[in-house]
Protein backbone atom coordinates (compact mmCIF):
# COMPACT_ATOMS: atom_id res chain seq x y z
CA UNK A 1 0.00 0.00 0.00
CA UNK A 2 2.88 2.40 0.74
CA UNK A 3 4.03 2.13 -2.89
CA UNK A 4 0.52 2.86 -4.01
CA UNK A 5 0.31 5.88 -1.69
CA UNK A 6 3.68 7.09 -3.03
CA UNK A 7 2.35 6.69 -6.57
CA UNK A 8 -0.64 8.77 -5.56
CA UNK A 9 1.61 11.79 -5.10
CA UNK A 10 2.76 11.72 -8.72
CA UNK A 11 1.50 14.61 -10.83
CA UNK A 12 -1.85 13.91 -12.45
CA UNK A 13 -1.97 14.46 -16.20
CA UNK A 14 -4.48 16.89 -17.61
CA UNK A 15 -7.26 15.73 -19.91
CA UNK A 16 -10.21 13.47 -19.15
CA UNK A 17 -8.76 10.18 -20.47
CA UNK A 18 -5.35 10.93 -18.99
CA UNK A 19 -6.91 11.48 -15.56
CA UNK A 20 -8.89 8.23 -15.78
CA UNK A 21 -5.72 6.33 -16.79
CA UNK A 22 -3.81 7.93 -13.93
CA UNK A 23 -6.49 7.01 -11.36
CA UNK A 24 -6.63 3.46 -12.73
CA UNK A 25 -2.87 2.98 -12.29
CA UNK A 26 -2.04 5.06 -9.23
CA UNK A 27 -5.13 5.83 -7.13
CA UNK A 28 -5.17 3.53 -4.07
CA UNK A 29 -8.91 4.15 -3.76
CA UNK A 30 -9.71 3.00 -7.29
CA UNK A 31 -11.65 -0.10 -6.12
CA UNK A 32 -13.74 2.01 -3.76
CA UNK A 33 -14.48 4.57 -6.48
CA UNK A 34 -15.47 1.79 -8.89
CA UNK A 35 -17.85 0.36 -6.29
CA UNK A 36 -19.31 3.81 -5.63
CA UNK A 37 -19.83 4.65 -9.31
CA UNK A 38 -21.32 1.22 -10.06
CA UNK A 39 -23.73 1.71 -7.13
CA UNK A 40 -24.77 5.16 -8.40
CA UNK A 41 -25.15 3.82 -11.97
CA UNK A 42 -27.26 0.91 -10.72
CA UNK A 43 -29.69 3.19 -8.86
CA UNK A 44 -30.02 5.38 -11.98
CA UNK A 45 -30.73 2.32 -14.12
CA UNK A 46 -33.15 0.96 -11.50
CA UNK A 47 -35.11 4.24 -11.61
CA UNK A 48 -35.20 4.33 -15.42
CA UNK A 49 -36.30 0.69 -15.73
CA UNK A 50 -38.86 0.57 -12.92
CA UNK A 51 -40.38 4.02 -13.46
CA UNK A 52 -40.06 4.75 -17.18
CA UNK A 53 -39.76 1.39 -18.96
CA UNK A 54 -41.74 -1.24 -17.06
CA UNK A 55 -44.15 1.21 -15.36
CA UNK A 56 -43.92 -0.85 -12.19
CA UNK A 57 -43.33 2.32 -10.15
CA UNK A 58 -45.65 3.86 -9.17
CA UNK A 59 -47.50 0.54 -9.02
CA UNK A 60 -50.85 0.20 -10.79
CA UNK A 61 -53.99 -0.51 -8.75
CA UNK A 62 -54.29 -3.85 -6.88
CA UNK A 63 -58.10 -3.93 -7.23
CA UNK A 64 -58.23 -4.15 -11.04
CA UNK A 65 -60.35 -6.88 -12.59
CA UNK A 66 -58.83 -9.52 -14.85
CA UNK A 67 -59.66 -7.64 -18.08
CA UNK A 68 -57.83 -4.54 -16.88
CA UNK A 69 -54.82 -6.60 -15.77
CA UNK A 70 -54.64 -8.27 -19.20
CA UNK A 71 -54.78 -4.77 -20.72
CA UNK A 72 -51.91 -3.62 -18.48
CA UNK A 73 -49.67 -6.51 -19.56
CA UNK A 74 -50.56 -5.82 -23.17
CA UNK A 75 -49.89 -2.05 -22.86
CA UNK A 76 -46.50 -2.60 -21.22
CA UNK A 77 -45.47 -5.72 -23.14
CA UNK A 78 -42.25 -4.34 -24.65
CA UNK A 79 -41.29 -2.16 -21.68
CA UNK A 80 -41.62 -5.09 -19.26
CA UNK A 81 -39.59 -7.50 -21.37
CA UNK A 82 -36.81 -5.07 -22.34
CA UNK A 83 -36.75 -3.36 -18.95
CA UNK A 84 -36.52 -6.52 -16.89
CA UNK A 85 -34.08 -7.96 -19.45
CA UNK A 86 -31.79 -5.05 -18.54
CA UNK A 87 -32.36 -5.64 -14.82
CA UNK A 88 -31.47 -9.35 -15.11
CA UNK A 89 -28.32 -8.31 -16.95
CA UNK A 90 -27.18 -5.73 -14.39
CA UNK A 91 -28.61 -7.21 -11.15
CA UNK A 92 -25.07 -8.23 -10.19
CA UNK A 93 -24.22 -4.54 -9.86
CA UNK A 94 -25.95 -4.62 -6.47
CA UNK A 95 -22.86 -6.52 -5.27
CA UNK A 96 -20.90 -3.23 -5.53
CA UNK A 97 -23.42 -1.47 -3.34
CA UNK A 98 -23.25 -4.26 -0.75
CA UNK A 99 -19.47 -4.29 -1.01
CA UNK A 100 -18.95 -0.58 -0.33
CA UNK A 101 -21.49 -0.58 2.51
CA UNK A 102 -19.83 -3.70 3.93
CA UNK A 103 -16.47 -1.92 3.55
CA UNK A 104 -17.85 1.06 5.52
CA UNK A 105 -18.60 -1.31 8.40
CA UNK A 106 -15.16 -2.93 8.17
CA UNK A 107 -13.71 0.59 8.50
CA UNK A 108 -15.65 1.10 11.73
CA UNK A 109 -14.48 0.10 15.18
CA UNK A 110 -17.09 -2.68 15.28
CA UNK A 111 -16.97 -6.45 14.84
CA UNK A 112 -16.61 -7.83 11.30
CA UNK A 113 -19.82 -9.77 11.97
CA UNK A 114 -21.79 -6.58 11.20
CA UNK A 115 -20.41 -6.30 7.65
CA UNK A 116 -20.81 -10.02 6.97
CA UNK A 117 -24.41 -10.05 8.25
CA UNK A 118 -25.32 -6.99 6.19
CA UNK A 119 -23.82 -8.38 2.97
CA UNK A 120 -25.54 -11.75 3.44
CA UNK A 121 -28.95 -10.22 4.20
CA UNK A 122 -28.88 -7.65 1.40
CA UNK A 123 -27.61 -10.18 -1.15
CA UNK A 124 -30.62 -12.37 -0.36
CA UNK A 125 -33.02 -9.40 -0.25
CA UNK A 126 -32.52 -8.67 -3.95
CA UNK A 127 -34.21 -12.00 -4.78
CA UNK A 128 -37.73 -11.33 -3.40
CA UNK A 129 -37.41 -7.53 -3.54
CA UNK A 130 -36.42 -7.25 -7.20
CA UNK A 131 -35.71 -10.45 -9.16
CA UNK A 132 -38.91 -12.40 -8.31
CA UNK A 133 -41.01 -9.40 -9.35
CA UNK A 134 -39.07 -9.11 -12.58
CA UNK A 135 -39.44 -12.82 -13.39
CA UNK A 136 -43.18 -12.97 -12.59
CA UNK A 137 -44.09 -9.83 -14.53
CA UNK A 138 -41.86 -10.83 -17.48
CA UNK A 139 -43.60 -14.22 -17.62
CA UNK A 140 -46.95 -12.37 -17.74
CA UNK A 141 -45.74 -9.97 -20.43
CA UNK A 142 -44.30 -12.76 -22.56
CA UNK A 143 -47.73 -14.13 -23.52
CA UNK A 144 -50.45 -11.48 -23.01
CA UNK A 145 -52.94 -13.94 -24.61
CA UNK A 146 -52.54 -16.33 -21.66
CA UNK A 147 -55.57 -17.28 -19.50
CA UNK A 148 -56.61 -13.99 -17.72
CA UNK A 149 -56.78 -15.84 -14.40
CA UNK A 150 -53.11 -16.78 -14.73
CA UNK A 151 -52.17 -13.23 -15.70
CA UNK A 152 -54.03 -11.90 -12.64
CA UNK A 153 -52.08 -14.40 -10.48
CA UNK A 154 -48.77 -13.27 -11.96
CA UNK A 155 -49.76 -9.61 -11.51
CA UNK A 156 -50.65 -10.07 -7.81
CA UNK A 157 -47.59 -12.22 -7.09
CA UNK A 158 -45.29 -9.80 -8.95
CA UNK A 159 -46.43 -6.68 -7.11
CA UNK A 160 -46.77 -8.35 -3.71
CA UNK A 161 -43.22 -9.66 -3.87
CA UNK A 162 -41.94 -6.29 -5.11
CA UNK A 163 -43.69 -4.07 -2.53
CA UNK A 164 -44.58 -6.45 0.26
CA UNK A 165 -41.30 -8.21 1.02
CA UNK A 166 -39.51 -5.20 2.43
CA UNK A 167 -39.26 -6.94 5.78
CA UNK A 168 -36.19 -8.84 4.56
CA UNK A 169 -34.36 -5.51 4.34
CA UNK A 170 -35.32 -4.61 7.92
CA UNK A 171 -32.65 -6.60 9.74
CA UNK A 172 -29.97 -5.40 7.31
CA UNK A 173 -30.90 -1.78 8.02
CA UNK A 174 -30.90 -2.54 11.74
CA UNK A 175 -27.40 -4.05 11.50
CA UNK A 176 -26.03 -0.98 9.71
CA UNK A 177 -27.77 1.35 12.18
CA UNK A 178 -26.28 -0.37 15.24
CA UNK A 179 -22.82 -0.42 13.63
CA UNK A 180 -23.00 3.36 12.94
CA UNK A 181 -24.23 4.22 16.43
CA UNK A 182 -21.58 2.21 18.29
CA UNK A 183 -18.72 3.03 15.91
CA UNK A 184 -15.89 5.12 17.36
CA UNK A 185 -14.18 5.87 14.03
CA UNK A 186 -16.83 8.40 12.97
CA UNK A 187 -17.27 6.79 9.55
CA UNK A 188 -20.83 8.14 9.37
CA UNK A 189 -22.50 10.98 11.28
CA UNK A 190 -24.87 9.84 14.01
CA UNK A 191 -27.87 11.49 12.33
CA UNK A 192 -27.52 8.94 9.56
CA UNK A 193 -27.61 6.17 12.16
CA UNK A 194 -30.90 7.60 13.41
CA UNK A 195 -32.18 8.00 9.84
CA UNK A 196 -31.89 4.20 9.55
CA UNK A 197 -34.73 4.00 12.10
CA UNK A 198 -37.00 5.90 9.66
CA UNK A 199 -36.03 3.52 6.87
CA UNK A 200 -36.53 0.34 8.89
CA UNK A 201 -39.95 1.54 10.12
CA UNK A 202 -41.08 1.88 6.50
CA UNK A 203 -40.62 -1.89 6.25
CA UNK A 204 -43.42 -2.27 8.82
CA UNK A 205 -45.59 0.30 7.04
CA UNK A 206 -45.77 -1.75 3.81
CA UNK A 207 -46.92 -4.90 5.66
CA UNK A 208 -50.70 -4.11 5.35
CA UNK A 209 -50.45 -4.26 1.54
CA UNK A 210 -50.82 -8.07 1.90
CA UNK A 211 -54.42 -7.62 3.07
CA UNK A 212 -55.53 -4.28 1.58
CA UNK A 213 -56.64 -3.87 -2.02
CA UNK A 214 -57.58 -0.19 -1.89
CA UNK A 215 -56.69 2.93 0.04
CA UNK A 216 -53.66 4.33 1.77
CA UNK A 217 -52.25 0.92 2.77
CA UNK A 218 -52.66 -0.94 -0.53
CA UNK A 219 -49.48 -1.59 -2.52
CA UNK A 220 -50.05 1.65 -4.49
CA UNK A 221 -51.36 3.57 -1.45
CA UNK A 222 -50.40 7.06 -0.34
CA UNK A 223 -48.78 5.69 2.84
CA UNK A 224 -47.61 2.18 1.89
CA UNK A 225 -46.08 3.36 -1.38
CA UNK A 226 -45.70 7.15 -1.63
CA UNK A 227 -44.58 8.09 1.88
CA UNK A 228 -42.36 4.99 2.07
CA UNK A 229 -40.79 5.74 -1.31
CA UNK A 230 -40.16 9.35 -0.20
CA UNK A 231 -38.33 8.10 2.90
CA UNK A 232 -36.39 5.56 0.80
CA UNK A 233 -35.29 8.26 -1.68
CA UNK A 234 -34.07 10.55 1.14
CA UNK A 235 -32.30 7.60 2.81
CA UNK A 236 -30.67 6.39 -0.41
CA UNK A 237 -29.54 9.88 -1.41
CA UNK A 238 -28.08 10.37 2.07
CA UNK A 239 -26.07 7.16 2.03
CA UNK A 240 -24.80 7.67 -1.52
CA UNK A 241 -23.49 11.13 -0.55
CA UNK A 242 -22.07 9.87 2.76
CA UNK A 243 -20.35 6.88 1.13
CA UNK A 244 -18.67 9.27 -1.35
CA UNK A 245 -17.55 11.36 1.59
CA UNK A 246 -16.23 8.22 3.30
CA UNK A 247 -14.14 7.30 0.24
CA UNK A 248 -12.69 10.83 0.12
CA UNK A 249 -11.83 10.66 3.84
CA UNK A 250 -10.44 7.10 3.73
CA UNK A 251 -6.82 7.00 4.92
CA UNK A 252 -6.49 3.18 5.02
CA UNK A 253 -5.74 3.34 8.74
CA UNK A 254 -7.77 1.76 11.51
CA UNK A 255 -8.44 4.79 13.73
CA UNK A 256 -11.01 7.56 13.37
CA UNK A 257 -11.54 8.70 9.79
CA UNK A 258 -10.04 12.15 9.25
CA UNK A 259 -12.33 15.04 8.37
CA UNK A 260 -12.34 15.99 4.68
CA UNK A 261 -9.54 18.43 3.92
Amino acid at each position, binding site marked *: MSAAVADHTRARPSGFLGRIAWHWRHDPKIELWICWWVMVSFYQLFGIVFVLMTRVMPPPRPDWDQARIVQWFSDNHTGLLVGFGIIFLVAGMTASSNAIIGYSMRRMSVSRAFAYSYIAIYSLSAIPGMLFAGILLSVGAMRPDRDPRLLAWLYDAGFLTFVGTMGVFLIGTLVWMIAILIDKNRVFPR*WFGYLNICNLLTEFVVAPCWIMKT*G*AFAWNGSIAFWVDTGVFV*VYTTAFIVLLRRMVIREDFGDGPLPDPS
Partner: protein
Amino acid sequence: MTSPAASISSREAGTVARRPGAGVVLGEPDMWAFVLFECLIFASYFIIYMLYRMADPELFLRSQEHLSQDLGVANTLIMLTSSWLMARCVQAAREKKFEIASRQVVLTLTCGVAFVALKVTEWSMKLREGLGFSTNEFFWFYYFLTGIHVLHVLIGFVVLAVVVHQLRSPERRSQEIVETGATYWHMVDFLWVMIFALVYVMR
Protein backbone atom coordinates in the same frame (compact mmCIF):
# COMPACT_ATOMS: atom_id res chain seq x y z
CA MET B 1 -20.14 19.27 35.59
CA THR B 2 -16.39 18.78 36.04
CA SER B 3 -16.56 15.18 37.10
CA PRO B 4 -18.94 13.82 34.46
CA ALA B 5 -17.40 15.98 31.77
CA ALA B 6 -13.97 14.64 32.62
CA SER B 7 -15.34 11.14 32.52
CA ILE B 8 -16.43 11.46 28.87
CA SER B 9 -13.91 9.68 26.72
CA SER B 10 -11.59 11.83 24.67
CA ARG B 11 -13.14 10.48 21.47
CA GLU B 12 -16.56 11.55 22.57
CA ALA B 13 -15.39 14.92 23.82
CA GLY B 14 -13.62 15.56 20.53
CA THR B 15 -16.69 14.60 18.57
CA VAL B 16 -18.90 16.90 20.60
CA ALA B 17 -16.52 19.81 20.12
CA ARG B 18 -16.52 19.40 16.36
CA ARG B 19 -20.15 18.53 15.80
CA PRO B 20 -22.03 21.37 14.07
CA GLY B 21 -24.89 22.70 16.13
CA ALA B 22 -23.54 21.29 19.41
CA GLY B 23 -24.48 23.58 22.27
CA VAL B 24 -27.25 25.22 20.23
CA VAL B 25 -29.75 22.51 21.20
CA LEU B 26 -30.01 20.10 24.14
CA GLY B 27 -28.41 16.71 23.49
CA GLU B 28 -27.05 15.66 20.11
CA PRO B 29 -28.02 17.90 17.18
CA ASP B 30 -28.16 14.63 15.19
CA MET B 31 -31.11 13.49 17.30
CA TRP B 32 -32.91 16.76 16.57
CA ALA B 33 -32.41 16.19 12.84
CA PHE B 34 -34.01 12.76 13.31
CA VAL B 35 -36.88 14.21 15.36
CA LEU B 36 -37.60 16.81 12.66
CA PHE B 37 -37.60 14.15 9.92
CA GLU B 38 -39.84 11.84 11.95
CA CYS B 39 -42.27 14.71 12.60
CA LEU B 40 -42.32 15.35 8.84
CA ILE B 41 -43.19 11.70 8.17
CA PHE B 42 -45.92 11.70 10.84
CA ALA B 43 -47.24 15.02 9.47
CA SER B 44 -47.72 13.27 6.12
CA TYR B 45 -49.63 10.44 7.88
CA PHE B 46 -51.84 12.97 9.66
CA ILE B 47 -52.56 14.88 6.44
CA ILE B 48 -53.54 11.64 4.67
CA TYR B 49 -55.74 10.70 7.66
CA MET B 50 -57.46 14.10 7.50
CA LEU B 51 -58.05 13.77 3.75
CA TYR B 52 -59.72 10.38 4.25
CA ARG B 53 -61.73 11.79 7.12
CA MET B 54 -62.91 14.73 5.03
CA ALA B 55 -64.00 12.30 2.31
CA ASP B 56 -66.34 10.43 4.71
CA PRO B 57 -66.81 12.36 8.00
CA GLU B 58 -69.92 10.36 8.98
CA LEU B 59 -68.09 7.02 8.90
CA PHE B 60 -65.19 8.42 10.91
CA LEU B 61 -67.49 9.92 13.56
CA ARG B 62 -69.52 6.70 13.90
CA SER B 63 -66.37 4.59 14.15
CA GLN B 64 -64.73 6.96 16.61
CA GLU B 65 -67.59 6.29 19.06
CA HIS B 66 -66.32 2.71 19.40
CA LEU B 67 -63.05 3.94 20.91
CA SER B 68 -62.77 4.21 24.68
CA GLN B 69 -62.08 7.82 25.59
CA ASP B 70 -61.15 6.69 29.12
CA LEU B 71 -58.40 4.40 27.84
CA GLY B 72 -57.18 7.17 25.53
CA VAL B 73 -57.04 9.66 28.41
CA ALA B 74 -55.30 7.08 30.62
CA ASN B 75 -52.69 6.49 27.89
CA THR B 76 -52.18 10.24 27.53
CA LEU B 77 -51.75 10.73 31.28
CA ILE B 78 -49.23 7.87 31.42
CA MET B 79 -47.28 9.31 28.48
CA LEU B 80 -47.28 12.85 29.92
CA THR B 81 -46.15 11.51 33.30
CA SER B 82 -43.32 9.60 31.65
CA SER B 83 -42.23 12.75 29.84
CA TRP B 84 -42.29 14.71 33.09
CA LEU B 85 -40.19 12.01 34.79
CA MET B 86 -37.70 12.16 31.93
CA ALA B 87 -37.45 15.95 32.28
CA ARG B 88 -36.76 15.44 36.01
CA CYS B 89 -34.07 12.91 35.09
CA VAL B 90 -32.32 15.50 32.89
CA GLN B 91 -32.49 18.03 35.72
CA ALA B 92 -31.16 15.52 38.27
CA ALA B 93 -28.28 14.56 35.94
CA ARG B 94 -27.41 18.27 35.55
CA GLU B 95 -27.25 18.53 39.34
CA LYS B 96 -25.02 15.41 39.35
CA LYS B 97 -27.64 13.45 41.29
CA PHE B 98 -27.05 10.38 39.17
CA GLU B 99 -28.80 7.91 41.48
CA ILE B 100 -31.99 9.96 41.33
CA ALA B 101 -31.61 10.48 37.58
CA SER B 102 -31.22 6.75 37.06
CA ARG B 103 -34.34 6.07 39.14
CA GLN B 104 -36.34 8.60 37.10
CA VAL B 105 -35.38 6.83 33.85
CA VAL B 106 -36.48 3.49 35.31
CA LEU B 107 -39.81 5.08 36.28
CA THR B 108 -40.11 6.53 32.75
CA LEU B 109 -39.48 3.05 31.38
CA THR B 110 -42.16 1.63 33.71
CA CYS B 111 -44.65 4.20 32.40
CA GLY B 112 -43.70 3.16 28.86
CA VAL B 113 -44.40 -0.50 29.69
CA ALA B 114 -47.76 0.48 31.22
CA PHE B 115 -48.56 2.48 28.08
CA VAL B 116 -47.83 -0.48 25.80
CA ALA B 117 -49.75 -2.88 28.06
CA LEU B 118 -52.80 -0.58 28.02
CA LYS B 119 -52.56 -0.20 24.24
CA VAL B 120 -52.40 -3.98 23.73
CA THR B 121 -55.40 -4.38 26.05
CA GLU B 122 -57.32 -1.78 24.05
CA TRP B 123 -56.47 -3.50 20.74
CA SER B 124 -57.56 -6.89 22.05
CA MET B 125 -60.86 -5.36 23.29
CA LYS B 126 -61.52 -3.89 19.85
CA LEU B 127 -60.64 -7.16 18.13
CA ARG B 128 -63.04 -9.05 20.43
CA GLU B 129 -65.76 -6.59 19.38
CA GLY B 130 -65.01 -7.52 15.76
CA LEU B 131 -63.33 -4.21 14.97
CA GLY B 132 -60.15 -5.18 13.13
CA PHE B 133 -57.70 -3.44 10.85
CA SER B 134 -59.77 -4.06 7.74
CA THR B 135 -63.17 -3.14 9.31
CA ASN B 136 -63.26 0.29 7.67
CA GLU B 137 -61.06 3.26 6.78
CA PHE B 138 -61.16 4.73 10.28
CA PHE B 139 -59.82 1.51 11.81
CA TRP B 140 -57.05 1.29 9.18
CA PHE B 141 -55.75 4.54 10.56
CA TYR B 142 -56.51 3.73 14.20
CA TYR B 143 -54.44 0.53 14.14
CA PHE B 144 -51.75 1.97 11.91
CA LEU B 145 -51.15 5.22 13.82
CA THR B 146 -51.31 3.63 17.27
CA GLY B 147 -49.23 0.65 16.04
CA ILE B 148 -46.44 2.70 14.49
CA HIS B 149 -46.42 4.83 17.67
CA VAL B 150 -46.03 1.73 19.85
CA LEU B 151 -43.04 0.73 17.69
CA HIS B 152 -41.51 4.11 18.55
CA VAL B 153 -42.18 3.44 22.23
CA LEU B 154 -40.42 0.05 21.93
CA ILE B 155 -37.40 1.74 20.29
CA GLY B 156 -37.63 4.24 23.16
CA PHE B 157 -37.10 1.36 25.62
CA VAL B 158 -33.72 0.71 23.99
CA VAL B 159 -32.89 4.43 24.13
CA LEU B 160 -33.83 4.62 27.83
CA ALA B 161 -31.84 1.45 28.55
CA VAL B 162 -28.79 3.15 26.99
CA VAL B 163 -29.38 6.20 29.24
CA VAL B 164 -29.60 3.98 32.36
CA HIS B 165 -26.43 2.14 31.26
CA GLN B 166 -24.63 5.49 30.87
CA LEU B 167 -25.83 6.84 34.20
CA ARG B 168 -24.87 3.77 36.21
CA SER B 169 -21.11 4.13 35.68
CA PRO B 170 -19.00 7.28 36.34
CA GLU B 171 -16.76 6.28 33.39
CA ARG B 172 -19.61 6.39 30.94
CA ARG B 173 -21.73 9.28 32.21
CA SER B 174 -22.55 11.90 29.61
CA GLN B 175 -25.08 14.69 30.00
CA GLU B 176 -25.37 14.79 26.22
CA ILE B 177 -26.54 11.15 26.07
CA VAL B 178 -29.13 11.79 28.81
CA GLU B 179 -30.48 14.82 26.95
CA THR B 180 -30.45 12.94 23.64
CA GLY B 181 -32.52 10.14 25.19
CA ALA B 182 -34.90 12.70 26.68
CA THR B 183 -35.29 14.38 23.27
CA TYR B 184 -36.33 11.07 21.74
CA TRP B 185 -38.75 10.28 24.54
CA HIS B 186 -40.37 13.74 24.37
CA MET B 187 -40.86 13.18 20.63
CA VAL B 188 -42.69 9.91 21.39
CA ASP B 189 -44.86 11.80 23.90
CA PHE B 190 -45.53 14.64 21.43
CA LEU B 191 -46.55 12.20 18.69
CA TRP B 192 -48.95 10.42 21.05
CA VAL B 193 -50.63 13.71 22.01
CA MET B 194 -51.16 14.43 18.29
CA ILE B 195 -52.55 10.93 17.66
CA PHE B 196 -54.83 11.18 20.70
CA ALA B 197 -56.16 14.55 19.55
CA LEU B 198 -56.77 13.45 15.96
CA VAL B 199 -58.02 9.89 16.44
CA TYR B 200 -59.80 9.96 19.83
CA VAL B 201 -60.88 13.54 20.47
CA MET B 202 -61.47 15.46 17.22
CA ARG B 203 -65.14 15.51 16.26
